[in-house]
């Protein structure tokens, strides 16, 4: 059993979900996504035993394209993140009633399939295909099941689609050029390419455009808030929890090892941009009146910090970024689910329409509180581990980066606690707020368990990814001798 099985399960699951019909679709999706999770865990278990779990097949002679899925610490961690979050996302949608149910759940599984493919691919072209493939389901999910008027929704979703698609095209151009230059799309071959500084600069820029739009890093973020707000919560979770990690992962997997000289040369500009995003996102979050938009901007701030960590080109930075990616994936899914839980009861996303929830629902309040605390990286939560390593690596690059990036600690607490106060506290709301149901509670408990466990004991993940990151660092440092 190798990694391709995970993909097969997800793809087959998507088809099966479609065919079992509307009534059973949600359950089928849950079963198949859980099966994918089990498969991932099994593959990781085998990988740890040293068994070969990679899959490679020469798909096309000329141009040489490999249908290759490589299992290593990084790709398996991201696959696990995807397959662990997918059942959670599927399960969290159980409380909602969607028209065309089977299409909805099939698209979620298909999206998971595309994202896992992106994480696992070793061949640049196949990677690109998966990368673009993942856009299609989220486009339909946001367009068909989103909120707000159809006209507005269409406007923001199409903007998102074209924007990210346009950015990715530059990446395709870069890949085609690299193939011309090296005769291969395989990442290991590309890592060894000795490109001139001009070539590196252009390729770096092309990759950067694709990733900066997807992540997003300011000033390429304008699609984000509207789509997060308009998409159904499951879609927002997929986008913020996993899909934007594709870009961050790709920075470490593709951009930095292929163009290390350029990465080093433009390090300060890029980190500066990322850090500016931290402040920018945080301050904008303060001004939001819509809960999901607020969370979107807070996400902008957090991923800015993650990207900054990756671009420091140090082991601590890469590792911190990686850990933070996982932590952020879980916490943001939890937060958006909390927004959804409120939305189910109050049928509004406006913060001004909330308040006085704590009196009515102590359980929900506690869980939401812990999520908020994880989001502001309180020590003991997983987010602290990542944020600490990222900030430490930034401090080593330049102490001011750490100081300015570190304001996220203050501003994050500011907007999150302010939000919490306005949403949850105060006199009892006139509208009835039922405390969380068992299934809603289960989603929260799983997420919180992950966040707290790895917050105190991140060693399993750290040990799993560190050797791979060290290898990546060797490629990154191949130009500085």
């Amino acid at each position, binding site marked *: 059993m190798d990694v391709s099985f995970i993909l097969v399960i997800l793809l087959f699951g998507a088809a099966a979900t479609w065919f079992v019909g509307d009534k059973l679709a949600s359950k089928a999706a849950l079963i198949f996504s859980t099966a994918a999770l089990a498969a991932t865990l099994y593959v990781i278990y085998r990988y740890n035993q040293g068994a070969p779990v990679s899959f490679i097949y020469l798909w096309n002679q000329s141009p040489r394209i490999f249908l290759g899925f490589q299992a290593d610490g990084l790709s398996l961690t991201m696959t696990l993140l995807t397959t662990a979050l997918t059942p959670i996302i599927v399960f969290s949608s159980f409380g909602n009633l969607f028209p065309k149910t089977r299409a909805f759940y099939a698209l979620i599984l298909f999206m998971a399939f595309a994202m896992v493919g992106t994480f696992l691919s070793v061949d640049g072209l196949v990677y690109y295909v998966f990368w673009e493939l993942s856009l299609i389901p989220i486009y339909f999910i946001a367009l068909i099941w989103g909120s707000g008027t159809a006209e507005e929704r269409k406007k923001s979703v199409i*903007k998102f689609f*074209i*924007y990210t698609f346009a950015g990715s095209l530059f990446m395709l151009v870069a890949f085609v050029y690299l193939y011309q230059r090296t005769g291969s799309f395989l990442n290991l071959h590309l890592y060894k390419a000795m490109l001139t500084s001009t070539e590196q600069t252009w390729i770096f820029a092309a990759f950067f455009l694709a990733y900066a739009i997807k992540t997003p890093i300011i*000033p390429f*973020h*304008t*699609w984000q808030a509207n789509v997060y707000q308009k998409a159904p919560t499951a879609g927002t979770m997929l986008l913020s929890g996993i899909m934007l990690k594709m870009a961050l992962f790709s920075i470490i997997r593709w951009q930095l090892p292929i163009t290390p000289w350029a990465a080093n040369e433009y390090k300060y500009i890029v980190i500066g941009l990322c850090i500016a995003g931290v402040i*920018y996102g945080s*301050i*904008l979050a*303060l*001004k939001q009146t819509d809960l999901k938009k607020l969370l979107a901007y807070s996400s902008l701030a957090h991923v800015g910090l993650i990207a900054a960590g990756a671009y420091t080109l*140090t*082991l*601590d930075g890469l590792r911190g970024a990686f850990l933070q990616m996982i932590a952020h994936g879980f916490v943001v899914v939890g937060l958006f689910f909390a927004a959804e839980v409120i939305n189910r009861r109050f049928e509004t996303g406006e913060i001004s329409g909330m308040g*006085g929830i*704590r*009196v009515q629902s102590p359980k929900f309040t*506690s869980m939401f509180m812990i999520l908020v*605390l994880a989001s502001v990286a*309180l*020590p*003991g939560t997983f987010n602290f*581990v990542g944020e*600490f*390593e990222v*900030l*430490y690596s930034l*401090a*080593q690059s330049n*102490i001011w980066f*750490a*100081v300015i990036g*570190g*304001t996220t*600690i*203050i501003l994050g*607490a*500011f907007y999150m*606690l*302010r939000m919490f*106060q306005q949403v949850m*506290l*105060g*006199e*009892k709301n006139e509208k009835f707020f039922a405390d969380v149901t068992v299934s809603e509670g289960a989603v929260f408990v799983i997420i919180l368990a992950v966040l707290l466990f790895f917050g*105190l*004991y*991140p*060693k399993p993940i*750290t040990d799993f990814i*560190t050797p791979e990151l060290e290898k990546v660092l060797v490629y990154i440092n191949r130009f500085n001798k």
Partner: protein
Amino acid sequence: METNLALLLLFAPFAGFLINIFFGKKLSKTLTGTLGTVAVAVSFAATLYFFLQVLQTKTPVMVNLFEWLHLANFTVNFSFQLDQLSLLWLMFVTGIGTLIHMYSISYMHDDENMHKFFAYLNLFVFFMITLVMGSNLLIMFIGWEGVGLCSYLLIGFWYKNQEYNDAAKKAFIMNRIGDLGFLIGIFILAYLFHTVEYDLMKAELENGWSVDKAWLGIAMLCLFIGACGKSAQLPLYTWLPDAMAGPTPVSALIHAATMVTAGIFMITRLNFLFNLTPDVLEIIAVVGAVTSLVAASIGLVQNDIKKVLAYSTVSQLGLIFLALGLGAYEIAVFHVITHAFFKACLFLGSGSVIHALHGEQDMRNMGGLRKVMKITFVTFLISTLAISGLPPFSGFFSKDEILMTAFHHNKPLWVIGSLASIMTAFYMFRLLYLTFYKDFRGTEEQKHHLHESPTLITFPLIVLAILALVGGAISLPGMSWLNEYLAPVMAKPAEHHHLGNTEYMLMGIAVVGALIGIGVAYAKYIKKGEVPPADAQITGVTNVLYNKYYVDEIYTAIIIKPIYAIGSFFKNVTEVALSGFVFGLGRAATLLGNQGKTVQNGSIGFYLLVFVLGVCSILGYIFLVK
């Protein structure tokens, strides 16, 4: 065995927290309270065991659990260190903690969420123990942020009131400013020493590890900013008076006796590093002295009984920082301990008063309580005498040591400190007179219900008052047990002042100063029988003081408002512009397409003409140009 006991010490309050948060609702109120109290008492017992052991063996107990963080040039373990300093701190944290838990059983009995109160309080003790016990800076940071969280939860305990929530939020955010400083300080230290363990850093320094002094100075300054946040020093002190929104036991435990001393603990813990950066120490001394004066001056005119105590806490903490800045860590620790005793007693006493008056906190509506609340009055009086610095109460010894050290090192700071002490004596007696003397000024109904508090409340008061009375014995001038006890954790031996004429004269000045303060208060509030005027009638300097020098307003104007203004700018200008630019690109494409559309006019003749011209030009190019 030792490991297990140490873990019991640490986790007993956490167990209390878990039980109360999950099952507290089903248990009876007395039971939840008892559980919470017992949990802390267990910790106290364990602390006592270790304390006695270390007192004999003089070797610290180390507990190493497992690796937490692994970075390129250092690792962080979950490891704990029970040495002289941490045990001393644990003694009063768990000891006073137990008393205050006990007090809360009665005080919070009418609250519907009593189990939550005890859960949070237990959680606080857990984090405080973590903070103190940790053997490296990051474990301290866990506790550091954790106590901040509990402080947030407990200040906003009555969450239906949004003003209280504002105060809670403010405390958390102000603390976080300091926390950022703390983190940056940790980064620099980790970079310099390749470790964050106290012992290893100390060992490296002793082995001649060369450290960049400039960076070390910056690191120490950053850590001091952290301490400023947690211990409410200028310019980050404004959260502490607001924190009085929480229930009174919280004010006593967190915002007077324990959490706010975390900054002092940290500086004392790192004394071997602070000693290397005299410039930073000087800054600490000046900040401490100025804080003590500013806070004392605000305390002069406050009318809310808890606010007076809050400013007095800030002021006393300022004095302690003054001692730290002068390098007299032992004296700082001494004052922390005596302050914990008398300030906890004062807060609990004020709680007893508030309890008796059903929530009334304004001193203008009190008076004459000494007749009905005898125990509260006596304990309050002892503590007030202690804080005013009259012999033989504990406060006299510790405060006098601080001023004496200041006199020897830096005369202006001594003057400031002495002034603050005189003010302290004044406002504390003002508080005492307004609350307990003359006639009752509240409503008839309140008067009718006046009563002495139950034993659960008075017992802690009595214990604390006794401690406030005799606590000075641990470090008498000339024969200090404390200095000797703390010697192993101090990089430099404690300074020893010979009790010469100067010293006796200084003591005399301090006592006379305190008596002057008391005298003025007596003349004003007993002889003349003045009562502070209503808010609207306050004028002049008093008004500035009453409004706390408008510091909150200034912060709002220069920090909060600009942030919101920038936010509006970002939201209404930058976002719109960026978004417009992206849409503009889309529109440009449409425009270009529309232009191209006009060529496609449907006329076959036109198409053919263009076609022929095209072919001709290609042929022309091939034959003529080439």
